[in-house]
């Protein structure tokens, strides 16, 4: 293995060694949402014709778990290495900033996708989900995970304490994922909140992803692709700049 491949492997080994916490836990949480919301709302909410509410919920929950875990992987790995001081082992190596980026984001994508797949595998016990356009599913899954892994990288570099990272997670990532249309179609919202939702990039990730399953969505998948792609490009440029200048990691 070359240097960056070793870092990618190490980052994957890190979450794999605590798989109960990093994979099984999030899958179980998603299942609880599915059981409770599915049971409570199945007969009351109809989002799309021919799609049961529980089936509607599955892609949204899978994507939400994927996004949150991709973010958690890079951000928690970095903040732990910074707080414990073992980031120095990496700082002493010949790895370039591009290597760091590829390895940290790569491992985040893997964890996000593994958790997403886990949510599908378990939800198959409860409901049938169609796969209308599989390519869109794969595309949005990888782009969403990469976007959140990169955002986690930025947050991990920026945060100096666990507290700051938790604030980022609880006050930015959580509200934006919950308000992105995981549990509802934004068409059910009043016009004002529909408008607000269009400024939330998470909405496009979930809407585009869901299009892959049902072939219907709130906005065109191409628009979603454009928004997600542009967001990914933006956070990538920011993260690469931070790594290149050694933001908060090289004095």
């Amino acid at each position: 293995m070359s240097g960056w491949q070793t870092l990618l492997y190490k980052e994957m080994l890190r979450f794999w060694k605590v798989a109960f916490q990093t994979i099984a836990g999030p899958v179980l949480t998603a299942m609880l949402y599915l059981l409770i919301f599915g049971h409570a709302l199945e007969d009351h909410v109809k989002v799309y014709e021919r799609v049961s509410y529980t089936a509607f919920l599955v892609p949204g929950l899978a994507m939400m778990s994927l996004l949150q875990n991709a973010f958690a992987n890079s951000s928690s790995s970095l903040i732990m290495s910074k707080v414990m001081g073992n980031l120095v082992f990496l700082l002493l190596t010949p790895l370039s900033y591009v290597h760091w980026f590829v390895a940290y984001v790569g491992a985040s994508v893997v964890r996000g996708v593994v958790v997403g797949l886990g949510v599908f595998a378990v939800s198959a016990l409860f409901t049938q989900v169609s796969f209308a356009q599989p390519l869109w599913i794969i595309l949005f899954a990888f782009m969403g995970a990469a976007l959140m892994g990169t955002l986690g990288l930025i947050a991990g570099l920026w945060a100096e304490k666990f507290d700051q990272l938790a604030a980022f997670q609880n006050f930015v990532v959580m509200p934006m994922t919950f308000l992105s249309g995981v549990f509802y179609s934004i068409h059910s919202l009043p016009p004002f909140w529909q408008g607000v939702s269009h400024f939330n990039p998470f909405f496009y990730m979930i809407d585009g992803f869901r299009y892959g399953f049902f072939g219907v969505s709130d906005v065109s998948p191409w628009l979603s692709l454009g928004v997600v792609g542009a967001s990914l490009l933006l956070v990538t440029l920011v993260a690469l700049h931070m790594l290149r200048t050694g933001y908060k990691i090289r004095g």
Partner: protein
Amino acid sequence: MAAIAFQSISKAYPSPKGPKGTTFLAVDNVTLSIEEGEFFGLLGPNGAGKTTMISMLAGLSRPTSGRVSVLGSDVQTDFASARRKLGVVPQELVFDPFFNVREALRIQSGYFGVRNNGAWIDELLESLGLADKASANMRQLSGGMKRRVLVAQALVHKPPVIVLDEPTAGVDVELRQTLWQFIARLNKEGHTVLLTTHYLEEAEALCGRIAMLKSGRIVALDKTSDLLKAASSNVLRFKLDSALPAALAARARVTGRIVQLPAHDAREVEGYLAAVREAGLTATDVEIRKADLEDVFLDVMTQNKDSVHSAGVQA
């Protein structure tokens, strides 16, 4: 070619005291060259700038001005090549709690792109007394064992230049012996070693050449033997139960009951003892010994209270 070359490097940090925007120089225009195969000691009191110099060498922080190179590779512009040639044992006892000892070494080796490194990893584990801890998680190791792993991690890519930043701070006698035997062997095999330590007897025993750093400047730089020669050649040492007469106190180093005074000849010794007797005191356990590096160190540090740059210290 120099193994390590600091060329007019300075490092400014924002001043912790004083108005905002002011800076202080942790390292102040230091030029220092360490040749291949040397065992070099960098000494100085806390806050003298030793770790800052090592951080700049290792690429952990950037010089405000000046350049640093390792075997001809600039640590900023040619960082990948410089870091391959350099093995650094950090001062802080850090570790990654997710991995066991062998995993940590394999991973560190992998970062440098070194493949099939099992034999060398085994040799490192053996030489540093870690063989029976290879599959122990890093969390389970004692402080001394963690320190050994840090040394092994620094050496895992077989760097020709080795930097040890206070590797024996808080470490027991046995590990110190194991460690120094191993490092001395590597030095004999041609590795360059740069060492910072607080234990001056270690520096005296191991280092061929020594630089003393104070307030970010080099205040002494010479062969260890020449530094010892230049110092006042003898030290009068005795014990005293009461306070030392004022006339002597200015020149003496007092540690509890033990008083040490630099003495060049018998007359000086007689003078000291007479002063003690005249004060109505009795010196016990009187002995005269050769000056050691600690005497030189204290001498240099007190002589340079105003951080005067002594002449001719550039290598």
